[in-house]
């Protein structure tokens, strides 16, 4: 059973990351790919505060706050770049966060990471079993999906989409493109930091290798595979990417073959999707762009 809970936790937490990425790319048309950075900061801040016996809810809040104060000022400069340049800048941001975590052993434990993170305790509820974490992450995913849904069909979502389509036209309508984009990045960063805050105490042990650039790229691939602008799509994309390695685990192949086979399967799957449904699994159908 714990194995199923583990899969649930992974799908839900990556689902939260994917929805944040989807807000930026699917609606705002921003190739800002730094979900791993916010995820890492959320996880580390919660782990450190939990090790110092700071209450769980404060740790989660602190994680979001630190992630926002560190990442949003940098992001607000970076989002002036367009397209691929923004991608490169945001990946650099991920790498900066990872290597900082790796090279400040006095604070973050460096490459050894943080061990024996105590279970998350939110007010009177102590999350100690995988079941509890599964429940909490489902709750988080539902909340984030709901917010995503509300935002997408709100005046803000309409404006975010407009700025993604034609920045100059939006500017000529008197809107501040930067303000709109910073708000979207802030929302994505907060949700990713909260996901990180659940991830760290669930795993009990975290180290910088769990938060590399590849995590960000993986989230990006999940969003694209699922379909831009679609909630169902993002969750489907996440499920595919989490479940495929698990299937190969049951096939009983030796690790030396399973790992490269997994990569091949991913590559094949991406090509297949791009060939058959270029707009992603739920790309077109979930995208009527009608209001509300």
């Amino acid at each position, binding site marked *: 059973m714990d194995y199923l809970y583990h899969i649930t936790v992974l799908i839900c937490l990556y689902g939260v990351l994917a929805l944040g990425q989807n807000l930026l790319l699917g609606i705002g048309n921003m190739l800002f790919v730094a979900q791993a950075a916010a995820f890492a900061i959320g996880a580390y801040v919660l782990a450190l505060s939990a090790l110092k016996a700071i209450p769980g809810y404060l740790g989660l809040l602190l994680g979001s706050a630190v992630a926002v104060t560190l990442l949003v000022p940098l992001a607000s400069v970076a989002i002036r770049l367009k397209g691929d340049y923004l991608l490169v800048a945001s990946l650099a941001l991920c790498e900066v966060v990872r290597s900082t975590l790796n090279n400040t052993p006095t604070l973050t434990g460096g490459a050894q990471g943080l061990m024996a993170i105590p279970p998350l305790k939110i007010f009177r509820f102590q999350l100690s079993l995988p079941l509890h974490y599964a429940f909490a992450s489902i709750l988080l995913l539902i909340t984030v999906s709901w917010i995503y849904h509300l935002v997408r069909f709100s*005046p803000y979502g309409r*404006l975010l989409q407009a700025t993604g*389509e034609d920045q100059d036209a*939006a500017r*000529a*309508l008197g809107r501040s493109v930067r303000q709109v984009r910073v708000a979207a990045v802030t929302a994505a960063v907060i949700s990713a930091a909260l996901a990180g805050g659940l991830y760290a105490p669930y795993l009990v042990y975290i180290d910088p290798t769990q938060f590399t650039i590849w995590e960000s790229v993986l989230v990006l691939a999940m969003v694209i595979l699922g379909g831009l602008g679609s909630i169902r799509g993002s969750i489907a994309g996440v499920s595919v990417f989490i479940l495929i390695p698990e299937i190969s685990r049951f096939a009983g192949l030796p690790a030396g073959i399973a790992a490269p086979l997994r990569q091949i399967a991913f590559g094949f799957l991406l090509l297949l999707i791009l060939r058959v449904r270029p707009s992603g699994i739920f790309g077109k159908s979930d995208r009527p762009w009608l*209001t*509300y």
Partner: protein
Amino acid sequence: MLSAIHIARSFGGVQALHDVSLFLEPGNVAVCAGPNGAGKTTLLNILSGWDQPDQGSVYLEGKPIARLTPEIAHRLRIVRTFSTPRIFRNLSVFDNIYLACAITHSERFISSLLRRRYNRELKEQVRLKTTSLLEELAIADKVDTVAGNLSGGQQKLLDFACALARNGKILLLDEPVSGRLPSQLRSCIGEMIRQFADAGNSVLVVEHNRDFIRSIADRILVLASRISRVAGETGGGFVLGEGRATEARTWQLLEESYNVRA
């Protein structure tokens, strides 16, 4: 209201505008006419902040505007359209008009979570306004269509509807009736422009279509592209003349502008 004095603009070696002056008055529809390459669109770009003049400046209510940008133009309620419609193609017709209405206070991220009822009411209001606007332009049935799926003519109409919805004081229209539009719609657009001007606003229209010019213009500014009489100077943007639409001389000038060759 809006005026431009001694405007000159060159692109590389080509002088697009030579010393052009223009005055827009409230309640008036001015038309800027002339052949291709005469600098009509360049003039419109400068008046709406999309381009900066090399010389001369733009004045609003007699005060010079130091550096006009599209943002500042929006704040000063100067609205312009482009000859190729500049609309958000992935958004619905309704969304395009909603954005044009510029109800910015409802566009905060937080308000999409906390002020849902208010936003819904706002949407109903905009919906009513949109429907009546689109009904006049005979595209009311397309309210929920994605703008990119409209035909070229319908996109043009949507662009015009957005310009009206923006609640400007000065309207600069670049070829509002170019392309294939039924003649009823043409006269309908003419009437709507007239109504807008009669409310005390001013309008500048860049247009080729002479029947349309005749139906709406109060004054006509004629630009020409090359004048051999001016020794050594070629390019566009010479003012050939300016006059009332009721005077025969103005129309002669307009004829002449198409015949001027280097």
